[in-house]
Each structure stands twice: as structure tokens, then as C-alpha cells.
């Protein structure tokens, strides 16, 4: 199969098309602008629609409309734009509409900067908008993984009738790697959505709605949603175990940082340090199982993130005070390099042997 060198943003767009998405709505923001330019070129070629919304607010609501009409639809943005989309995402959850949202996270808060960051982890994994809900959140750490996860994202979204969020960062968006597209889905072959709005012809009318003014019924609706989230929490777990078998120091990183950490771990291992890494790929649901699996051998955990300590909260829940946890963060758009992470590993090692 042909490998092509592509920028993360463009690979993301192509993967969406190959996953059967024919409707893209978005509003420009760095560092994800190439998704839009790529889509504007490619969508007409495949009979799809690219439409630039007047804002992220409009864009996510266009996604909601297209999804209600039965199509695979998506948008992508970066942090400030994703904040604006929270309203629409919450409505989509309430209306039980699928859809894929990609966030190439940049440093915040406010306008922040355009450097790569992971500081939207909590917003992404703990709901983000109003109401009791979760999105399945996937955190790729290479462009190939981003491509593969795009397909999964559309499938998961359809399966649960719930939006899925891809939490990438500026590095994944802006770097280039050779990728393969191992799938090509013709959207006309996808199963019919029996709830979609396509005209009440030969059937009773359909309604897509998040409003219910009867609290008891709304409660029941919420429990139905919760049942879906519980199902997803069991089924959609994904993680990578990296050199964990004899690991005494266990790093926990996701996305780009995990990649940088791998190099640090390889280097430290060459010098005889027993270190490995748990890399959550599904950030919601958060994989707890590998923590229990390697707890016995682990002496300490080290969480490294490009934020001020967000996934750290989930790691604390997973480790449940059984081992000490160290954290090192970089909020605001700066990056770690392998040397910095290796130094963190050495520091812990020396402390441990004291």
C-alpha cells in the first residue's frame, strides 16, 4: 500500500473523507487552517460539501444539521474555537447526534498563543459544555494514528449517536510523516439512520430534540444517555503499554508528549534504568486497567503533559494513592524535548535510591 508524506492537518482531512465524511464546516484558526483548505479542494472532488461558517458557533450547528440529516459530518478547530463550540456539542449530545470534532490544541487561556499544548484535556474529557455528558475523546500521538483514529471516531460516533472528539495538538497538526490510508468507506454504503430527518414520506414525522420540560422524563433521558456512556466506557478503551514489564518508573503521557517521552525512555533504558510508559489513547474513557496491571512492579509514576497538570487528575484516580506520583508540565505552548524528560527520569531515580 502506498505511503504518502503528509502534514497532520491534511492527513486528518483526507482520513475523514476516506472514513465517509462528506460534510465539513469550519472557521479558520491556527494551527489547523490546512484542514479547511484541504477540504475546500477535496470535498467538491468527492461530491461533498465544504462550507466556511461565519464562526465556530455556526460551524458546529451546521455539523448538527448535517448530522440530523443523516450524514457523516465534522468540524475542526483549535482551542478558542472549540470553546465556542461547546454549546453546539452539548446540544448534539442531548439530541443524540453523531459527529466528529478535531481540536488541534494551542496554548491558552484566552487567545493564548499558537504553540502546541494539551491544556484542553479537562474541557475535552469532563464534558466541556453544560449538562451531564461525556464525549469519547481520542488522543493520537502520530499522524498515522490520527488517520486511523479518524475512522474509529466516525464509527464510534455513529454507534453511540454521540459526538467524538479528537484531541490532537499543534505538533501533530503541523508535522509531516509518511502515512497509509488503510480504509476507504463509500458513504452510500453505510447503514440507513432510522432517526435521520429526510422527509416524512410514508412514515410518521421524526423529531430531533434535546428539550423536555417534564423533569421526570428528562431524568429518564439522562439515564439513557448515561447507559450509553457506561457502555462506551467499557468498550472504547484504548491504550499503549511501552516497555512496562520490569518498569519501576512508569511514565504516563498522551499525544505528542508520549512520543517525545519514548525517546527519553529508550535513552534511559540504554543506561540501565527500568522505565516504561502507559500511554492512554482513549482519554475518555480513561484506561485504568494498565495501572492495576503494572502496579506491583511500579515504584513511582511520572506524569508529563503540555499543560499545568490535567490528565494528572485521572492518573491520581487510577493510582489511588498506592504509589507516589510526580508531575512535570509545560503550559502555554512550549514543548518538552527528549533530554528534558530523560532528566526527569534520572532525578526520580536518584531520589528513589537515596
Amino acid at each position, binding site marked *: 500500500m502506498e505511503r504518502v508524506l503528509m502534514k497532520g492537518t491534511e492527513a486528518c482531512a483526507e482520513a475523514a473523507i476516506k472514513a465517509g465524511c462528506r460534510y465539513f464546516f469550519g472557521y479558520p484558526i491556527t494551527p489547523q487552517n490546512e484542514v479547511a483548505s484541504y477540504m475546500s479542494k477535496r470535498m467538491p472532488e468527492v461530491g461533498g460539501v465544504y462550507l466556511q461558517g461565519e464562526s465556530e458557533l455556526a460551524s458546529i*450547528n451546521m455539523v448538527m444539521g448535517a448530522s440530523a440529516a443523516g450524514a457523516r459530518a465534522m468540524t475542526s478547530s483549535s482551542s478558542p474555537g472549540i470553546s465556542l463550540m461547546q454549546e453546539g456539542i452539548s446540544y448534539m449530545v442531548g439530541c443524540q447526534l453523531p459527529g466528529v470534532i478535531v481540536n488541534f490544541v494551542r496554548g491558552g487561556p484566552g487567545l493564548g498563543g499558537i504553540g502546541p499544548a494539551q491544556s484542553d484535556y479537562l474541557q475535552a474529557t469532563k464534558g466541556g459544555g453544560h449538562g451531564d455528558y461525556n464525549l469519547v475523546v481520542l488522543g493520537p500521538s502520530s499522524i498515522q494514528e490520527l488517520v486511523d483514529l479518524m475512522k474509529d471516531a466516525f464509527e464510534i460516533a455513529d454507534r453511540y449517536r454521540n459526538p467524538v472528539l479528537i484531541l490532537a495538538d499543534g505538533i501533530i497538526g503541523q508535522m509531516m510523516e509518511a502515512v497509509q490510508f488503510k480504509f476507504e468507506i463509500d458513504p452510500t454504503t453505510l447503514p440507513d439512520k432510522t432517526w435521520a430527518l429526510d422527509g416524512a414520506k410514508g412514515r410518521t414525522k421524526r423529531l*430531533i430534540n434535546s428539550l423536555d420540560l417534564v423533569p421526570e422524563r428528562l431524568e429518564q433521558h439522562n439515564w439513557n444517555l448515561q447507559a450509553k456512556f457506561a457502555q462506551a466506557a467499557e468498550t472504547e478503551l484504548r491504550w499503549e503499554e511501552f516497555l512496562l514489564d520490569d518498569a519501576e518508573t512508569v511514565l504516563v503521557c498522551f499525544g505528542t508528549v508520549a512520543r517525545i517521552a519514548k525517546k527519553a525512555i529508550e535513552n534511559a533504558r540504554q543506561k540501565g534504568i527500568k522505565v516504561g510508559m502507559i500511554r492512554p489513547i482513549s482519554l475518555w474513557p480513561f484506561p485504568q486497567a494498565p495501572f492495576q496491571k503494572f502496579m506491583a512492579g511500579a515504584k513511582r509514576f511520572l506524569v508529563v503533559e503540555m499543560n499545568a497538570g490535567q490528565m494528572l487528575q485521572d492518573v491520581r484516580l487510577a493510582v489511588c494513592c498506592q504509589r507516589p506520583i510526580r508531575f512535570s508540565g509545560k503550559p502555554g505552548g512550549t514543548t518538552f524535548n527528549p533530554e528534558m524528560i530523560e532528566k526527569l527520569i534520572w532525578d526520580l531515580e536518584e531520589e528513589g535510591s537515596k
Partner: protein
Amino acid sequence: MSTQTYRPLYQRPKSLSPVRNSYCPGCHHGIIHRLLAELIDELQIQERSVIVAPVGCSVLAYNFFEIDAIQAAHGRAPAVATGIKRVHPEMVVITYQGDGDLAAIGTAEIVHAANRGERITTVFVNNANFGMTGGQMAPTTLIGQKTETTPEGRDPLRNGFPIRVAEMIASLTGPVYVARVAVYTPPLVAKARNSMKKALLAQIEGRGFGFVEILSTCPTNWGLTPVQATKWLEENMVPYYPLAEFVGGPQT
């Protein structure tokens, strides 16, 4: 009893659901719903129409029409409608919005949908206040008009001036039909029906965006009886909001 059948002169349109609506006595939302349902029947588009309900008193519009429906976030109906229409260009997509929904929180969405010339139809109900939340000032509230949030009357120095939305939409190049109508007398109802039909036809024929602003009463929040409310509308709203076809009328 005779088995002879009678020719119905007046009946519930097929597209209007046989349920009690939620509007106050004397509120024009009910009349406007009926007109829309009649037109859906007349144009034979019941099986390919979808209504995008707003947030406002007409939030439950999805219960009152026998067509597919979706309920949008406050102000976002035109964006949701855009998404549906782009997927199903053959469908007739209608947004139904109040003046808080369309002219305050959703100004950007309506202006840009209109400007893109989306093949959708917007029914805009201007009752000069926020009905659902208890009668607060809307962008369309008249100068001097007392509302829950303008107890001394709307002061333009503090709150700006009422927006003439139809004229604003008409200033764009995208729309192919823009009119302002009212429904407080039978002849006006007939005219309003005609305008709504033109706005729907603009979409059905694939020509472009159609927009009908309908001056409407809110007796409950205006603190008036239905009859007084009609009079108030005629005396205060009509002079400021002229009834006219701004785009796509006979003279243009």
C-alpha cells in the same frame, strides 16, 4: 342521519398536528403556524419539509407540525438549517424564529445564511420583546416601550435603537425574497400568506433565500388584552416597521 358527504370549507391543515398548542390567547404565533401549515399542504411539500424550531415561545413548534423537525440552540436555527439543506438539497427547510432568537443572539447566523443565499425559508416573528422569558427588551423593542428590563421605557442612549430586520436582510445581495407582513386583520392575513408562499417558492424553485418578518402580538407580556394588543401593534409597530415587500416584490 344522511350518508351524504359534505364538502369541507374549513378544516385543520394536514400538516398541522391535532394537538393543543402552547400559545397564549390572542398571540399571533397560532395564526402564523396555521398559515405555514396551510402552505405546506398547498405546495404539497409535507413529505419533504423539515422545520427548525428556535428557542423562544415557539420552541415547541416541533410538536405542532406534522413534518420532520429539529430543535436548535438559541439563535442557531439558520446554521442548523444550512447543515440539513446541504445534505438534502431537495428538502424544504424552514426556520421559525422570534426576535430574541433571530435579532439578538442569532444575528450572525441569520445574516450569514441570508448572505450565502442558503436555499432555506425563514419565518421571523417580531413581537417587540422576549416572550418566553417574561417580556424583556428585544433588539426590536420600540423607543419608549416598557418591558421587564426597560422599566422606564427603552432609552436609545442606553439601549440603542430598534432594528428593522427585514430592511437589514434586504440590504444583502443573497436573499431573493424579503417582506414584512402582519396578521391582525383578515386582508393582512391573506397578504401574509401570499408572502410566505413566495418565500417558500423561492426555496422550492431553487432560487435562493426567502425571509418573511411577521409583526406579532404578545398580549401576555405587553400586559394588554388581545384586542388592545392588536391595536397597540397597529398604532406603534406598523409606523416604525412598514409593511412591504423589500426584495422580490412586484416592483423589483
